[in-house]
């Protein structure tokens, strides 16, 4: 069977990077001696721990479940061993509760999962709850709980398997497609079933020749006519969810809307593979492929258990080549976050550990005034006008920032990259977005406070009224002297009788 294949033309926005030199080989990695598993590795609320320090846990056993009624995901033990502590620990980008486990070397599997020979026969609700319980989140870097995206099934007709990997140095998705393509396609079929969608586009980047070959062959064997392949130009950020949907389907996500509003959703290729592993072999999300690249002796991809210290990965890659450059980035050079040191654990979001060499670090040039060249507006993949946003930000004009669509900024950094005046636009926009968010939050809080104050005032008035009524009733009783006198006499007689009784 011929697999439909389309090539997408280079869009006007973005930055073209040459990524052909990426090594995408998958190397073996030994189990670490201890892992540190943060309870919040996803968008939403931290998971609630279900184990205690001192417990013995087995590989894949749930450590924490998603907080009830909140956006979140479960977290599982990446290896068998003893829980040493549940304490606040620094993680990549965020400090929070984390479970430390010391490995006992057995890697014994938790028997609580069922491996299904044919997961596609399960009901959609069973599939959905498995995805939620398996702690599966988007592995492209944003870690949005996958179950939520799949729950919003209604109206989504196209599933896009995102293997575009547009950041220049990352190759973990490439490695996954080359080594785990069957799981990826089974995961996609499961997702299609949950979504009741009828088409799936596997999106690759131009230059991933081996991956394209593997995916094409696998699809030919699978002979499922819902699948097609799209090859995207090596333009950053073509792999962003909104950008990918726009390039592949021509549909734009409405401002302030969510991807599924456009009728298409993206799932990372590794997310699809994780879904298949969960249902076919009963393994929750406890490992992922991580690219280690930059100034290390042997750049490579590793399948890493979540919670493994980054130093373990660096050692497996032969160590640092340049000891003077000690900058460490999680993610790619464009959107990655800087890590303070390599003792931090790998989390579900860790797609890449990048050690920039000295000449790759951006030169710290002095910021010059904006000359309104408009290069940033051309580069912006979200179709915003960064030069005008900058002006609005400088004058703290929140309304103007809102009307210029600041909320739709995806913080990709393209505007910084092209700016001839070296203005750190993205950093300002991130701060301004936070400010807008704060203002909106305070507005909501004020509205709620107003309601509660009104309720309190009503209650206080009612209580005062009740007290006044009671007082009035008492005074009324007393003022009726005859009745009061009679009552007093009765009372005296009764107490007198009581007193005499025992004697």
């Amino acid at each position: 069977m011929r697999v439909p294949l389309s090539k997408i033309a280079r869009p006007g926005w973005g930055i073209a990077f040459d990524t052909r030199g990426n090594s995408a080989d998958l190397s073996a990695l030994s189990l670490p001696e201890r892992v540190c598993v943060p309870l919040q590795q996803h968008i939403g609320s931290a998971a609630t721990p279900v184990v205690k320090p001192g417990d013995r846990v087995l590989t894949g056993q749930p450590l924490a479940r998603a907080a009830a009624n909140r956006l979140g995901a479960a977290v599982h033990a990446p290896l068998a061993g003893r829980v040493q502590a549940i304490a606040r620990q620094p993680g990549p980008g965020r400090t929070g509760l984390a479970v430390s486990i010391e490995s006992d070397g057995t890697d014994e599997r938790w028997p609580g999962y069922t491996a299904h020979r044919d997961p596609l026969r399960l009901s959609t609700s069973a599939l959905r709850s498995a995805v939620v319980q398996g702690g599966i989140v988007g592995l492209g870097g944003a870690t949005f709980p996958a179950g939520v995206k799949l729950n919003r099934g209604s109206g989504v007709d196209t599933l896009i398997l995102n293997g575009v990997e547009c950041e220049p140095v990352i190759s973990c998705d490439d490695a996954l497609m080359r080594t785990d393509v069957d799981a990826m396609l089974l995961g996609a079929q499961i997702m299609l079933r949950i979504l009741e969608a009828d088409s799936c586009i596997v999106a690759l980047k131009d230059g991933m020749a081996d991956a394209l070959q593997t995916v094409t062959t696998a699809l030919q064997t699978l002979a499922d006519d819902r699948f097609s392949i799209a090859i995207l130009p090596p333009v950053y950020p073509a792999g962003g969810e909104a950008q990918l949907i726009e390039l592949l389907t021509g549909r734009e996500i409405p401002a302030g809307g969510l991807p599924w509003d456009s009728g298409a959703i993206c799932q990372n290729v590794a997310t699809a593979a994780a879904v298949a592993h969960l249902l076919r072999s009963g393994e929750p999300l406890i490992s992922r492929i991580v690219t280690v690249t930059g100034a290390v002796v042997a750049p490579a991809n590793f399948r890493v258990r979540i919670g493994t210290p980054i130093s373990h990965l660096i050692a497996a890659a032969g160590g640092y080549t340049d000891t003077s450059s000690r900058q460490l980035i999680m993610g790619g050079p464009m959107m990655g976050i800087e890590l303070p040191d390599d003792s931090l654990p790998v989390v579900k979001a860790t797609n890449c550990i990048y050690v920039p060499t000295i000449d790759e670090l951006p030169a710290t040039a002095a910021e010059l005034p904006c000359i309104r060249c408009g290069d940033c507006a051309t580069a912006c993949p979200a179709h915003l006008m960064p030069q005008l946003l900058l002006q609005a930000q400088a004058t703290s004009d929140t309304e103007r920032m809102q009307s210029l669509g600041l909320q739709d900024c995806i913080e990709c950094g393209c505007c910084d990259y092209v700016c001839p005046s070296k203005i750190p636009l993205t950093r300002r926009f991130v701060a301004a977005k936070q400010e807008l968010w704060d203002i909106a939050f305070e507005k909501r809080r004020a509205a709620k406070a107003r309601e509660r104050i009104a309720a309190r005032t009503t209650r206080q008035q009612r209580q005062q009224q009740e007290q006044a009524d009671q007082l009035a009733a008492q005074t009324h009783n007393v003022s009726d002297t005859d009745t009061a006198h009679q009552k007093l006499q009765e009372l005296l007689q009764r107490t007198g009788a009581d007193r005499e009784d025992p004697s």
Partner: protein
Amino acid sequence: MITAIFILAGIALVVGLGLTLVNRTLPQNDQSPLDELEALLPATQCAQCGYPGCRPYAEAILAGTADINRCAPGGDATVTAIARLLGRHTATVDPAYGAYQPGHVAVVDEAACIGCALCIAACPVDAIVGAHRYTHTVIRDECTGCKLCLPPCPVDCISIVPLRPATRQAA
């Protein structure tokens, strides 16, 4: 002369009828300026501005006895919004009335709380739960961070903390 009077009276009649009609059909703006102004304020009732609550402060602004830059919990954005509503020059919050601290809530140190219930009475939004001789706690989602519970606490066990510890570091 007569013709002119008739023409002018005719025009006045038509315009008058038109205006009445428009007035009847268009939606009424029955919000008083005071309500509109109060809606811009953060409703914390924190009294940092020197008035006992947001409404009294709004009244004072309208009466011209208070400047518009006294609302610290609202921040510069609120001052700008008030300035726009009243057609005045915008300003920044006067630091004498406190600092802008968005997204903060009160937290009771439950180990130190003696259960005196004084803070419960002080809370304008009923966001503190507890009873006499029982530990109190703050309902995070309802607290406005107004700090009114701080002065009555005899053991100083309430602190104001940011709502989101690491705001979007991992963006």
